[in-house]
């Protein structure tokens, strides 16, 4: 070992929530003096916006102040809604996104016009890819200046059009509140997604006494509920006659709050379950029927099962390319039953032989009522168990070799309760966190799947912390490169004294790129060496958080324990084996069943 453990401890006197800090207490005291009991009275556009948020039950909002959004912020002064100022708007959109994932109700992000709005964009795109309910409110230059290239003007509705479910340009104070309410309702209805309301400053200032109503979904946007009876009958017959049935639970199962129904469905019919990555937590990974998640870095047994099934029942999944591998070889023998609330996902990537359009819970109940007998699949279940033993996720630990990332993930899993929330950035660390943590509950896995946004982990942990119960731990696994992208949000965690633990799996590489360079680019490490990282433990202390650095196996357990016990933000910089790779791996477009177990097999 080139370095001994340099476990460092921050000066405690700085870290305790200091009631004596005038900067923190003065606004709070003011707030208490001026805050009226009950909802915000509507006097103008901005109070109407805040009132609409209150009507929607919004309790937290994440954002950054700025010129064009100032009237809205001023109206928030009088509201019970807790606003969390983030360091950067991208942090606000990720925090709000993760808040929504954990809380099951749309997160709210605020930003000003121009750069404020464009900084939100990555988080909105992320929410769009993962179907996360997110409401963004952006300031805009006054209406009469729109189109004149005014200071901090960006065509925000234009920029966000392709990455929102729908967006709105508010044009009247009388309707602005209902527009915000509609955007909130639309974000969470049917297949959830991000919505945005652009708020020109003059409309925010414009006087009105029109009270906004409850959040209401627009009439022609009401989602389907139950599937038609003929589809259910056909799907039920297909399931009954299957010899190798397999359930594929996607993120939609969690979003539909259908986990209990889905679990009962699998157990009653004794059908093995694989999940997608966003579906992690929908079915307990310690259940014998569970084969964990399939796809590019999914388990060998999940990928074997999905390759050999003769009846694949996909629920709330969009058959993303990271799940399917090559379309030509995806579940090639399977009749596909596809349950989804979004008709446009049916047969988009994989042809659905039995489409069932509707809400996951209602459709599963319909199927349960229609199915006469469980499929005869004892041999298939045994086969799935055989694959579990044939392709174990086990790894040897050599105490004299550099730290294995898998070991760190398992150490945290062991040290925390089942309801602990895990957030991640994007890259190798994300895959290890998904592979080596045993998830048993929905809304405990919070990650950036479809967009693959490095830097998601820390702001997501902040958002998740506000949505989580007090007895839930929040652990963020991050990579060194990923953490560096949004680490300024640590200042927010310190300011708010948030009990979150960041575990950096630091390999001094942008590791997934390095892994691909080794496999597919002759090992030419172009721009992937990250041996220029700061000392994250010390940096954490400079922010006012606790920091540790860990290089050896015997330091892992004590550091994990201390960091989890610390009541505030803590960061452990784990220096892991820089050569560690993520396996299994299905190469892009390759057959899932041909997953590689080592680089030579790619």
């Amino acid at each position, binding site marked *: 070992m080139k370095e001994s453990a340099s476990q460092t401890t921050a000066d405690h006197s700085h870290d305790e929530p200091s009631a004596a800090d005038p900067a923190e207490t003065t606004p709070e005291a003011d707030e208490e003096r001026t805050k009226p009991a009950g909802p915000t009275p509507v006097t103008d556009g901005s109070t109407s916006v805040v009132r609409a948020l209150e009507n929607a039950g919004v309790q937290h909002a994440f954002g950054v102040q700025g010129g064009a959004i100032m009237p809205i912020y001023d109206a928030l002064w009088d509201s019970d809604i807790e606003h969390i100022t983030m360091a950067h708007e991208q942090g606000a959109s990720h925090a709000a996104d993760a808040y929504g994932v954990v809380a099951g109700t749309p997160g709210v992000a605020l930003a000003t016009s121009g750069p404020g709005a464009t900084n939100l964009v990555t988080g909105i795109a992320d929410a769009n890819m993962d179907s996360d309910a997110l409401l963004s409110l952006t300031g805009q230059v006054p209406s009469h200046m729109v189109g004149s290239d005014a200071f901090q003007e960006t065509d925000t509705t234009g920029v966000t*059009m392709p990455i929102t479910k*729908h967006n709105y340009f508010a044009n009247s104070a009388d309707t602005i509140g209902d527009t915000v309410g509609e955007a909130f309702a639309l974000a969470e209805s049917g297949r959830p997604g991000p919505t945005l309301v652009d708020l020109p400053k003059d409309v925010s200032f414009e006087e009105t006494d029109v009270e906004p109503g409850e959040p209401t979904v627009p009439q*022609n946007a009401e989602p389907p509920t139950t599937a038609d009876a003929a589809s259910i009958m056909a799907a039920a017959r297909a399931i009954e006659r299957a010899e190798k049935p397999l359930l594929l639970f996607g993120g939609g199962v969690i979003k539909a709050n259908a986990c209990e129904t889905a679990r009962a469905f699998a157990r009653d019919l004794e059908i093995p379950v694989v999940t997608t990555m966003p579906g992690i937590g929908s079915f307990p990974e310690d259940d014998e029927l569970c084969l964990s998640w399939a796809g590019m870095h999914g388990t060998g047994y999940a990928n074997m099962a999905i390759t050999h099934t003769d009846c694949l029942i996909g629920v709330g999944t969009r058959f993303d390319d990271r799940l399917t591998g090559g379309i030509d070889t*995806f579940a*090639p023998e399977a009749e596909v039953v596809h349950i989804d609330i979004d008709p*446009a996902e049916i047969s988009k990537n994989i042809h659905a032989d039995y489409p069932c359009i509707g809400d996951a819970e209602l459709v599963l109940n319909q199927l349960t009522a229609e199915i006469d007998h469980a499929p005869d699949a004892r041999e298939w279940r045994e086969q799935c168990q055989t694959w579990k033993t044939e*392709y174990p996720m086990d790894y040897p630990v050599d105490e004299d070799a550099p730290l294995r990332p898998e070991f760190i993930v398992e150490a945290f899993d062991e040290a925390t309760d089942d309801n602990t929330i895990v957030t991640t950035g994007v890259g190798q660390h994300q895959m290890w966190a998904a592979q080596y943590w045993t998830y048993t509950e929905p809304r405990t896995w919070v990650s950036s799947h479809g967009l693959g946004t490095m830097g998601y982990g820390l702001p997501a942990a902040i958002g998740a912390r506000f949505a989580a119960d007090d007895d839930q731990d929040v652990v963020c696994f991050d990579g060194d490169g990923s953490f560096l992208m949004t680490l300024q949000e640590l200042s927010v965690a310190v300011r708010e004294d948030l009990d979150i633990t960041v575990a950096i799996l630091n390999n001094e590489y942008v590791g997934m790129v390095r892994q691909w360079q080794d496999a597919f680019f002759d090992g030419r490490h172009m721009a992937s060496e990250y041996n220029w990282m700061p000392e994250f433990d010390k940096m954490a202390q400079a922010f006012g958080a606790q920091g540790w650095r860990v290089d050896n196996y015997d330091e892992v357990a004590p550091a994990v324990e201390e960091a989890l016990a610390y009541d505030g933000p803590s960061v452990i910089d784990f220096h892991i084996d820089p050569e560690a790779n993520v396996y299994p791996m299905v190469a892009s477009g390759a057959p899932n069943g041909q997953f590689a177990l*080592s680089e030579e097999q790619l």
Partner: protein
Amino acid sequence: MTQNEQGLQGPPPEERPHPDGRRNSQGIRIDPAVEAEPRTRTALVSALVEHEPGVLARVSGLFSRRQFNIESLTVGPTTVEGNARITLVVEETEPGIDQVKKQLGKLKPVLSVGELGDRAIRSELVLLKVNGDEPDKVHAVTQMYDGETLDAGPRTITVQLTGTHDSIEDAIDAFRQFGIIEIARTGPTALARGDTPTTPGEKPAAEATLGVPATDGGDTAESTVADETQAETTN
């Protein structure tokens, strides 16, 4: 310091069984022996939309970002105030056409989407500016194709032709002999034939069913009530 063992245990890829089945690029299971390139066809799609700012950008943006092949798009008002009809010609595979319709239906301002079959009434318009050296001959060809002369100047003649795609193609061919200087052409716009609504569930505005042209906002409250009654009985 020693090296970590890399990789996982288990049978390597070549030792694993793999099913023979295959899917085509649309994700449909096929017999690999008879796999053929999926054929495209031209579809005429009508979308009833809320005529709000940005709706055209939403529709065209959708086609662009999802790489749907669009040949033409026309847009105009309907009998219902605040609604517009967008008529699209798309060239896609069968699943691609389905996807176009479903993705269009997801846009919030889109009220209804329907595909128009071969029996639909369709028409497009072209303006042709040709050399004016032989006005008599130009006039003759224009008449032959039921066109109309809109402008006859000393050097150019501009004619208007309407009709199906093919008849307009034929006409343009016929005009080439004079030398075509400029062309402006709309795509087809279309309605379903007879009683069938052009998009599913589509209903006319109340006053439209009276069979008389709507007056310019001069209707009284009484006549509005009458209109609604009429609309209900008609539908």
